[in-house]
């Protein structure tokens, strides 16, 4: 079975300590409803959903408030056994911000409950009634080839459902939710079943069409279970053994998926469907990193496998916009660089005037998403955030739990499907206003001003369990070092390009200090992310020994994690050991590295000189104040005893 749907893989996996967290519910300070929702917002199997539902039931029995979950009373009428499904519904509803109360009369009393004015269901005054009927509930008979009888059966079935609906309508204001019918996986003739009137397949196709046509505009709601069953496969959906065992209408493996779909409809009825999609750019809407790869380097072309995957994301975003979902961008890039593909790349489907708010800067994404929400006058719980980077996803989930952040698989070809499968934008009605909504925001890709910085980023970074590894240049790292030196444009202080022989020279020169830096975190190894080369500064007589920072570059992926602070700390260690008293830094401006104009200032260097070209020179005495360490483990290895840079002039005192 397709794991995306069976395991609801747009949700994070259940935490290892799920058992412990279930037991601890209610003990923390925050509102109970939030805690339950946070726990529910994972991929949970039937047993886990059942346990969570038990906790919710206990809270109800104890009279505890489930704020801020919004109450909803759902009556369920079914010709099948719903008992295993009901707890899954309650737990899944919590995920969507709903405190679900289920009214479940005795088994298979569908007509009696709907039509009798003082039935359990009607007396309970539900907000909605779910008719969880499967095809076996309908009075159908096999009449192959008999068109008239076939039509009569379809009319009869629709009439039956209408009578049920009228019964509910006459006795309450409940919304009726009708399911379409999943046909059995097996055919009688084979291909002819669909074409020949009077076969089960043919009759059910027609019933589903007529049901779908009859509901819009009535206030009642369609739950397209036929589509859901088709999506996972009818052979997976239907389980004859389970039907025989206890009249379970479909495979237990699909209960979590079914429950989430019902929960989405209930949430949509309470206005909780999401309204905006915030897109990351690099490796999400195009392959590659615009800042490093440039317009020619990003993958977006039709006919390029990687490019096609990202085009599919753009296409889905545009389709969503067409039905009224607002689009925004949150990217860690310089604003002009991020806008370039929208303005100039011939294959871009998304244009700037599709984007309501365009946030491209180097601040953390949670601050930016808050700014986007304020600019759009929408709550954070109306936002969906799509980002290929698990670190960014974790940050936003951590600091802005109301934002929906789907997990994405490794392979970009499945990004669009995963976003669609998550169903964040479920709608129970579609009106003209929805079409106009996206335009209302006057998609002029404006920038929202940032309010105060989001708190909690440091705590999140500490939770990443980072390890930074410092080594001198060596043969193993050489290829990557050469690549970084020649490829890095943005976080590059001097943009000096070296060939491999020149790198080998630096590697071997006894008075040149080199650094290759690696970073790993709980999501994996980021590989080499920074390169530094220090050369002895030509000594003036009487001047203390100094290192000139010839090269300092870093991968933008690890911005915001204080890697550069840790690099400076490491540089200072080695400088001191080598008798160096000062570090000299240079910023050589290019049209790509505006990002690092303040790099030395932020690290506490003193500016010595600024030239008209924008070039700046900086210094840092080795006995100056070291930057505070970031929460990461440091591994420093492969360095020889000393990198002896002391000049051999007798006037130097150590």
């Amino acid at each position, binding site marked *: 079975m397709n794991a995306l749907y069976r395991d609801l893989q747009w949700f994070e996996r259940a935490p290892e300590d799920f*058992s412990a967290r279930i037991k601890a519910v209610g003990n923390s300070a925050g509102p109970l409803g939030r805690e339950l929702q946070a726990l529910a917002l994972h991929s949970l199997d*039937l*047993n886990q959903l*059942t*346990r969570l539902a*038990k906790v919710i039931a206990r809270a109800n029995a104890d009279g505890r408030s489930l704020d801020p979950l919004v109450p909803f009373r759902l009556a369920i009428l079914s010709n099948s056994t719903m008992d295993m499904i009901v707890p899954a519904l309650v737990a899944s509803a919590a995920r969507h911000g709903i405190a679900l109360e289920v009214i479940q009369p005795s088994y298979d009393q569908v007509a009696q409950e709907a039509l009798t004015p003082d039935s359990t269901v009607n007396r309970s005054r539900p907000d909605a009634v779910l008719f969880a009927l499967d095809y076996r509930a309908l009075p159908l008979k096999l009449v192959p080839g008999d068109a008239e009888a076939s039509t009569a059966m379809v009319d009869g079935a629709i009439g039956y459902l209408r009578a049920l609906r009228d019964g509910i309508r006459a006795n309450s204001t409940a919304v009726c939710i009708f399911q379409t019918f999943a046909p059995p996986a097996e055919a009688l003739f084979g291909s002819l079943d669909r074409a020949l009137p009077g076969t089960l397949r043919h009759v059910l196709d027609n019933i589903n069409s007529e049901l779908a046509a009859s509901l819009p505009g009535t206030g009642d709601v369609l739950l397209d279970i036929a589509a859901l069953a088709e999506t996972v496969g009818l052979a997976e959906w239907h389980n004859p053994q389970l039907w*025989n065992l*206890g009249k379970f209408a479909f495979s237990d493996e699909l209960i979590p998926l079914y429950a989430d779909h019902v929960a989405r409809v209930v949430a949509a009825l309470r206005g909780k469907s999401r309204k905006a999609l915030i897109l990351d750019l690099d490796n999400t809407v195009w392959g590659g990193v615009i800042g490093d790869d440039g317009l020619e380097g990003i993958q977006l072309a039709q006919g390029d496998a990687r490019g096609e995957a990202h085009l599919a994301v753009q296409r889905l975003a545009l389709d969503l916009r067409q039905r009224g979902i607002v689009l925004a961008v949150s990217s860690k890039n310089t604003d002009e660089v991020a806008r370039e593909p929208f303005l100039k790349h011939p294959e871009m489907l998304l244009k700037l005037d599709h984007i309501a708010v365009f946030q491209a800067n180097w601040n953390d994404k949670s601050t930016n998403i808050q700014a986007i929400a304020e600019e759009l006058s929408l709550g954070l719980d109306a936002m969906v955030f799509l980002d290929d980077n698990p670190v960014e996803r974790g940050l936003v989930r951590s600091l802005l739990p109301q934002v929906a952040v789907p997990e994405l698989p490794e392979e970009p070809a499945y990004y669009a499907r995963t976003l669609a499968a998550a169903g964040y934008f479920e709608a129970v009605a579609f009106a003209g206003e929805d079409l106009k909504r996206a335009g209302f925001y006057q998609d002029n890709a404006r920038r929202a001003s940032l309010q105060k910085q989001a708190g909690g980023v440091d705590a999140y970074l500490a939770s990443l369990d980072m390890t930074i590894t410092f080594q001198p240049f060596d043969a193993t790292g050489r290829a990557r070092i050469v690549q970084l030196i020649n490829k890095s444009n943005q976080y590059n202080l001097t943009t000096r390009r070296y060939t491999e022989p020149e790198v080998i020279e630096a590697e071997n020169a006894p008075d040149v200090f080199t650094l290759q830096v690696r970073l790993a975190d709980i999501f994996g190894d980021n590989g080499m992310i920074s390169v530094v080369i220090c050369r002895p500064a030509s000594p003036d007589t009487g001047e203390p020994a100094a290192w000139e920072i010839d090269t300092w570059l870093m991968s933008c992926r690890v911005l915001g994690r204080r890697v550069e602070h840790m690099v400076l700390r490491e540089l200072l260690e080695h400088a001191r050991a080598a008798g160096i008293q000062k570090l000299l830094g240079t910023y050589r401006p290019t049209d790509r590295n505006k990002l690092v104009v303040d790099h030395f200032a932020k690290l506490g260097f003193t500016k010595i000189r600024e030239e008209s070209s924008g070039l700046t020179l900086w210094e840092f005495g080795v006995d100056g104040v070291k930057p505070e360490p970031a929460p990461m483990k440091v591994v420093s290895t492969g360095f020889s005893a000393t990198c002896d840079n002391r000049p051999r002039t007798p006037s130097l005192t150590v």
Partner: protein
Amino acid sequence: MDESQIYARLSEIFESVFDDDSIQVTPALSAKDVDGWDSLAHIRLMLTVERAFKVKFTTPEIGKLENVGGLVALIQEKLQTN
């Protein structure tokens, strides 16, 4: 998989299905000993066991279980033929 491993795995399954980590999974354990082990929970238990051990039970096998000892024997039999 040896018997002690099967019992260990069943222990986790019982906690998961019955929401109770105090259940002692012994050969004599049966439905009357566990709160909430009704026919519905029984089906949920057997389905969970099927998935966990990657075995399939026939309808009579699901129904006629006396106690955990019988379940373990059934699992071992299925694992051998797998």
